[in-house]
């Protein structure tokens, strides 16, 4: 891999994205009907206005879920090597889990898990 391959890659990337846009411009026929303006073209017709107020409390659950999801993924590579490393690996993962648990405890104490 030299300079030329890098340039080829960059050109290919630009051509790929530009090509997609260009092809779409030429191919698309201008069909117009009311379903086009819907948020979900092929679903249940939307009712009411999209600007309604709704409770966003759920995003906290999502955030907390994300943290523990990432933690879980981290456990997989650990599980692969834990036998070969031995006790130090175990102690380290316990510390890691402990810090995350503190985060969970904090979220719980702050009432992030309460349904509003």
């Amino acid at each position, binding site marked *: 891999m030299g300079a030329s391959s890098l340039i080829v890659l960059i050109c290919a990337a630009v051509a790929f994205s530009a090509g997609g846009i260009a092809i779409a411009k030429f191919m698309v026929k201008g069909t117009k009907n009311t379903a086009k303006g819907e948020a979900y073209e092929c679903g249940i017709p939307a009712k009411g206005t999209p600007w309604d107020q709704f409770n966003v409390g759920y995003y906290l659950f999502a955030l907390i879920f994300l943290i523990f999801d990432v933690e879980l993924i981290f456990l997989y590579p650990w599980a692969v090597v834990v036998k070969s490393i031995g006790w130090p690996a175990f102690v380290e993962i316990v510390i890691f889990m402990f810090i995350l648990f*503190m985060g969970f*405890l904090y979220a719980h*104490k702050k009432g992030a898990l309460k349904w509003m």
Partner: protein
Amino acid sequence: MMVLIILTAAGILAMFASVFNGRSVVLPVSLSGLFAAGYFALLEWNTNTTYFEAMRMDNFAIAFTVVCLFAAFVFLLLYHYMHYSSDVHYAEVISIILFSLAGVVVMVSFTSMLMLFLGIEILSLSLYILAGLKKKDLLSNEASLKYLLMGAFATGFLLFGIAMLYGATGSFMLSDIAYYLGLHKAVAEPFIVTGIIMLMIGLLFKVAAAPFHFWTPDVYQGAPTLVTGYMATVGKVAAFAALVRVFQLGFSPALETYQFLFAAVAVTTMFIGNITALYQKSVKRMLAYSSISHAGYMLIALMAANEVTNGAVLFYSIAYTLASLLAFAVVAILQQKSGSDEVSVFNGLSKSSPLMSITFAVAMLSLAGIPPTAGFFAKFYVFSAAISDGWVWITVLAIINSFISVYYYFAPVIASYMKKGNEEGIVLATPVKVLLAIIALLTLLIGLLPGSLSYLI
């Protein structure tokens, strides 16, 4: 390592104090955490302890760690006395500061590119949150979002550069990269060039050097003023230390090749920062542009890349940190009183609070580089580093820039001494007074006895 553990533990403790109704213990816990961290950092002076081949606490790292710890100490005290009763998120702010310091320690002591990335991210994420501290303030929200989006973009560049260098050299270790570059004379290989330039873009964004400075004024203005002070000192100093470290330990064989790039960035940064600062009405924006121009001065020392570079950068960082802390502290206090950050709030300050006006004047003198303040010798060391390698033209341009900067630095000082304004006395808590006085005295003291500091590392 002990430093990192202490800072993280103190951060967690401070965070938990808030949920267990222990607001009053937050400050003692965090301050003792800072002092313990500083103590353990200084214990490793001259030892060059290496941790897991990823961090090395050499004198360079320790010196910058201590500078940042001091800045955080000042921030914590000021924050405590200005927001203890008014801010619901008081404990969280302090714990985020402590977490960000863990990032700082990693950033200044890394020997592996992965640790560089981790450190920068830990610091940046904390700063993104801190910038949006005033949840109901639109400007603060804008600052946080802008900083996050642009910062994430810059981090992308940084990571891409690291990946390129890993692909070319087969290692994340700075010493391996330096070895590879020296062995193969490979500084002009396309992957290396792309990698180093990407890495430069990422890091220059973090130190707010032109042409990657556009986020700075908006973020600095929108963020709460004390936080801006923290960003402008700790954020910039740590990022600059990382930049110096990565180029000295990793790319020293390539530095010759990139010298002109650095020179160009330094000159643009100084001119853009200083000239734009002339037109600012808001003191915060003015200080933001001034912080951009200071990144330019520091880049000159980095570009010179000789044996005095480290000393010059450290000295400049100390002088800049002290002066900026003072300036932002005074602006923050005035802004809390009057709700505005225009130059006009300084009118009559010498009557309403002589201490604040004199300390602010010292800070401005130091930033402008006028003796006998620390700022003068900071600029002196930077310029002499450049001149000893024959970079005369860039030194001349830098001195011209220093002259330009005098104009805007003196505008608030003149307002506070010459113009009449609200003469109602401003009451400050005694520790805040002592703190302001100590920082101002330190600035003067370093300006009078500069010798010992410049040969520290």
